[in-house]
């Protein structure tokens, strides 16, 4: 993978002279051009421009962070799950010390939060929510779905998790505990689903293809391979 950023190449002769707007290496563009800016868009732009003006951040740093976020997707989390399914020793390391285990796969989860993997078993089904805001393991799963941030999901998952799961098509038998994890602090949670039966001969990439984003939030189960 290359990290070359073509937009940073145009200003080499001019150095970093921030007095000239036309020399900014990567002026951010608005995502939408329909209608007037909302209050939060205005606030975001005002704060961002202040941070740039005061030299706290550079355009290039903001662009790099956006690229980092965009580079992460549920496929990364699925790869981790597949490795855990295929390698019992890795799974134990992952459950005990997520940061170190992910580093084995060259996955850097950054310094913003710690990560924790919770394992589904025949006795326990785990589901993740953040009632206070919308904490989410972005560096493993990418940008969260809108429903994860909705008031409905955030409030109802703690009160009626079985009802919410049923709406996702997940019926948990009463003999299995439902365990809700409200990520209220510095840990980001990801669910390690149970490996489906009939997958014993699958390769890790084949296993990863069974693992959806929602399965790692706990609102879905891994898809079962079709009989051939």
């Amino acid at each position, binding site marked *: 993978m290359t990290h070359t950023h073509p937009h940073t190449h145009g200003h080499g002769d001019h150095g970093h002279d921030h007095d000239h707007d036309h020399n900014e290496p990567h002026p951010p563009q608005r995502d939408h051009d329909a209608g007037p800016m909302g209050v939060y868009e205005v606030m975001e732009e005002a704060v961002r421009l202040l941070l740039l003006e005061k030299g706290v951040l550079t355009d290039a740093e903001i662009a790099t962070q956006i690229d980092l976020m965009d580079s992460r997707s549920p496929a990364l989390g699925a790869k981790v799950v597949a490795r855990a399914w295929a390698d019992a020793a890795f799974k134990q390391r992952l459950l005990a010390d997520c940061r170190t285990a992910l580093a084995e796969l060259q996955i850097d989860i950054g310094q913003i939060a*710690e990560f924790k993997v919770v394992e589904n078993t025949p006795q326990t089904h785990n589901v993740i929510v953040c*009632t*206070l805001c919308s904490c989410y393991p972005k560096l493993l799963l990418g940008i969260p779905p809108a429903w994860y941030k909705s008031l409905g999901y955030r409030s109802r998952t*703690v*009160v*009626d*998790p*079985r*009802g919410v799961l049923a709406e996702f098509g997940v019926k948990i038998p*009463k003999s299995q*505990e*439902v*365990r*809700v*994890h*409200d*990520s*209220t*602090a*510095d*840990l980001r949670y990801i669910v390690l689903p149970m490996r489906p039966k009939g997958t014993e001969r699958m390769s890790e990439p084949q296993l990863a293809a069974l693992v959806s984003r929602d399965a790692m939030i706990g609102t879905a189960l891994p898809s079962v391979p079709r009989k051939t």
Partner: protein
Amino acid sequence: MTSRTPRYKSGDPVRVDDRDVAGHCRAPWYLRGHTGVVVEELGNFRDPERLAYLRPGLPRQILYKVRFKQTDLWPDYVGPARDHLEADITENWLEPVVPARRKANAS
């Protein structure tokens, strides 16, 4: 960094304080005043209630994973008694629960 030893250990019953706080805090309303059990000590982190106001977040707070019975949290909970909820709560929001002394003639 703090070298304070954790006040609680896995298995300890704890109650979430139900004090009122003006401003940012990370102890959800629905858990305040409720009793759970510490299931894990998660390390120490900068105090979010101070970080939110551009303070250094010191002293760092020891964070615990606390497990609550859903049927304790919600009187009309529809699921089975085996269902739980876990949340990560800083030590300054927890108080010890002294188990009620059992009556001598209790069976």
